[in-house]
């Protein structure tokens, strides 16, 4: 099961993750101005929330991490000479 951690010191309470998550996993705690995880069982680990969060406050544990060949720095550097 996926565990979602919010770094409360980093979260600026912008609500972007609340808006962006298609499965309503987050809610904004108005009183403390931080996001809270309310529905982690519906998280499908798309990581859109990671991409939109301006302060890298989110962490998902125990998820399938998709292959990302495109961020291999060594290969990318070598390729700069070709393309």
């Amino acid at each position, binding site marked *: 099961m996926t565990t979602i951690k919010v770094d409360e010191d980093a979260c600026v309470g912008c609500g972007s993750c609340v808006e962006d998550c298609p499965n309503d996993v987050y809610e904004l705690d108005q009183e403390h101005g931080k996001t809270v995880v309310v529905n982690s069982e519906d998280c499908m680990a798309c*990581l859109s929330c*990671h991409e939109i969060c301006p302060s890298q406050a989110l962490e998902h544990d125990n998820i399938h991490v998709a292959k*990302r*060949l*495109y961020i291999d720095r060594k290969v990318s550097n070598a390729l700069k000479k070709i393309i």
Partner: protein
Amino acid sequence: MEIEREEIKGDFKPELIPSETGGDIEDYEEALHVLMKFVGSMASALEQVSGRGANAIVYQAGKRMGHEAGKLTEKTDNLEKALDELGEILGIDFYFEMWKPSDQEGYTIEKGDETVVKLLFMDCVVRQTLRRTGLPQKGPLCYLLYGYMVGAVEEVMDIKGKLDIDHVGPNACLKTLTIKWGGK
């Protein structure tokens, strides 16, 4: 950065299939990156020239490939079995699973003469290609996978299908597959 090249020397006759063609995994990775870059550029050029028509063209191309791939497996009218077999065809590069929200009982929903199932694509070469090239998701290249999936389902189940995007993310994309019973 210095690129080191190891020269492969050996005998070669056209009629012989060599047991190995040289190169290690990094060479293949490099070749794959070049291909990704080419395919990405092609997709964006296609979009520039044909606008939204690009999606339809690429969808048809994908669908044709899907029909061809679907011929490799046994026909079935069991959706879950068909999806299992399609998982084998699409392989680890398009690794997907059925997905449902926690309050929904089963994976499939019946709606009149239609069955609806949500598919979560976790690994996807198209996504990698788009992100490698800095292109947004949901563009023409994504339609290649939609077409492929729909074509393969149609072939395996002998029905009509369609795939809609629910959500695209950097790590997974959710799609809805709708199949219409009652022939093509």
